[in-house]
């Protein structure tokens, strides 16, 4: 049972945001398809319209561009999500701008006028392509500036146990690797220390602002914290109360400023990924009493360590339990 994205309000909100630019990317895909088919089927009319029918190389260039447009269409229309496919169009735009610029230099009069129209249209299209591509890239990197992350996992324990374990915030660093320590100072308040790059740390004080036993805990950093952040964890009984669905949402100062960037690093390079890893380890700690370690992944589950796998043979140095 893996960690999956929640179908909560936050998830829906994010999905809708994404859908806008994804729809635009699909539209660009259809546009490419139309353009590609036109260039291949009606190349001569196209070269008359654009004013390059005087050239012998123009039909070849147009045909090549047509084939290329079909490639863009495939990149944007075939995958389930268009992703970074729009960048192929940006690359194509640059080629087209260069080719049109080249054609423009040698022409005068009506042909020059037509090519200037083409150039202007191309510039506009390039702007749209660039916008869609940049949005897709930012989304891929999880840098849309929302400063939010969410995740969920099913735990084979009653809500009382899952809630009780989480409510003791001092347990959190056992499975949230970006935390160095959490110390409970009174009923509602706790002192958090998170690891930051370069061996530094970021500290803040947090308070519980809503506490519904066995159902929900909501907390936030107190005013004046260098790192404004908040979180909520919900516990829902399943399997007749023997298991619990745990859903977590975290929110923190949006990245952008220097401090914001530092905070983002403190919460992990990709907060969404981080929270998935955290919840896998939370499940392990509560269900098995330990974090699963193998020779290839000696520090326990994390997507980063999965990329840098050690060979599956014992480590040379001794590690403490």
């Amino acid at each position: 049972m893996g960690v999956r994205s929640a179908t909560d309000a936050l998830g829906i909100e994010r999905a809708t945001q994404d859908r806008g630019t994804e729809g635009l990317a699909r539209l660009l895909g259809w546009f490419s398809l139309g353009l590609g088919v036109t260039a291949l089927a009606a190349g001569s009319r196209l070269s008359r319209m654009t004013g390059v029918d005087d050239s012998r190389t123009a039909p070849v260039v147009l045909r090549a561009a047509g084939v290329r447009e079909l490639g863009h269409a495939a990149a944007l229309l075939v995958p389930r999500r268009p992703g970074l496919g729009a960048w192929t169009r940006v690359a194509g735009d640059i080629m087209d701008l260069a080719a049109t610029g080249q054609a423009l230099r040698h022409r005068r009069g009506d042909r020059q006028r037509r090519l200037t129209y083409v150039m202007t249209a191309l510039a506009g299209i390039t702007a749209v392509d660039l916008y869609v591509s940049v949005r897709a890239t930012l989304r891929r990197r999880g840098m849309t500036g929302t400063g939010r992350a969410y995740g969920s996992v099913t735990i084979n324990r009653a809500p009382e146990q899952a809630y009780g374990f989480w409510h003791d915030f001092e347990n959190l660093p056992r499975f949230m690797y970006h935390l160095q320590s959490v110390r409970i100072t009174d009923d509602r308040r706790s002192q958090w220390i998170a690891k930051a790059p370069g061996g530094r740390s970021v500290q803040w004080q947090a308070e519980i602002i809503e506490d519904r036993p066995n159902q929900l805990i909501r907390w936030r950093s107190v005013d004046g914290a260098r790192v404004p952040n908040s979180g909520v964890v919900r516990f829902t009984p399943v399997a007749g109360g023997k298991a619990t669905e745990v859903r977590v949402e975290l929110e923190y100062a949006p990245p952008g400023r220097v401090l914001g960037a530092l905070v983002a690093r403190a919460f992990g390079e990709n907060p969404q990924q981080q929270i998935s890893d955290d919840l896998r380890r939370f499940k392990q700690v509560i269900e098995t009493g330990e974090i699963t370690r193998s020779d290839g992944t000696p520090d326990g589950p994390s997507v980063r360590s999965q990329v840098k796998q050690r060979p599956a043979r014992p480590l040379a140095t001794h590690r403490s339990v």
Partner: protein
Amino acid sequence: MKANCWIAPNRVAVEEVPDPQILNPRDAVVRVTSSAICGSDLHLLDGFVPTMKRGDILGHEFMGEIVELGEGVRDGLRVGDRVVVGFPIACGGCSSCQRGLYSVCENSNPNAAMAELAMGHTPAGIFGYSHMMGGYAGGQAQYVRVPYADVGALKITDDLPDEQVLFLSDVLPTGYMAAELCDIKPGDTVAVWGAGPVGQFAAASAYLLGAGSVIVIDRFPYRLLMARDRVGAETINYEETDVLDTLRELTAGRGPDACIDAVGMEGHHASAALHAYDRAKQAVKAETDRPHALREAILSCRNGGTISAIGAYGGFIDKFPMGSFMNRSLTMRSGQAHVQRYMRPLLERIRNGEIDPSFIITHTMRLEDAPQGYDIFKNKQEECVKVVLKP
């Protein structure tokens, strides 16, 4: 210590590596007294299982003596105990483990995200079986670390020799589960594709579970002979006769009540052209697995019968006869063996003399000779069925 390591496709080597250590409270370190080469190790050797790294220690069938224990091992294990270890690593605490589905333990694969990419959800971690399955060092070594030892290690208290209990680690429970998945009614006819160790045990288990007739299909006469003489099965050599026709004839037209695929991803076909077709697609990665046995099992099975797919598959197959499967009301059941569920009852059966699994052993070699053992096993030389390695 010495350990048998994966180097590259078609290359393994015994290397000097660091000794394993306790990493977690519920770990044990076992000094291996016997380990075996499994048919599924050949899929690793041949390079058909992704996410192998140079230097990975192989081996998921092993037993030995506990030499070190974490302080959190709960189940009465002691240093000095003789144990057999099941190949799936299972925590015992997740809902899958508590339902007895140990090979899909939800916690034992630290590289779960990798497996989720390929399979949607992750199965359990497995010793010495790729990084997608956890990146655990295997047991073809002098020592091995056993996580969740209180769930995975079965104590052997009597003086049964290694050869009789070693296969509780994998192939005996795997063969037994293959037969159990068939839901055998007294007198049923069961057909088994593959006369390797799992196929032999599946056939023997089908009889234990009440089958009236068991038919084993393979192309190596010496393996078919073993199925006939040691298990009492009827046999079909698919290179000599047409399997579908023969099965129809043996069952007076209905087909076997249950069909077990104990072959998996590297099957062969009697027709060189059909074999080449799938082999070529596998080579260019247009499909990862060659499902000849599975296709034939589906077409052969009687209407409303059961397919038990126990041979190892890794990824994707082509030309799955879905039309036959759907229109004839077949059922397919599958899974890596939930070894921990079967170890104790099968140990009982061994003690009672109902089955002596040691009959499959054809070769006993030193750990140092593991590369040669892989070679003999892979190429079916010297009438090889099972290689046991002694560190």
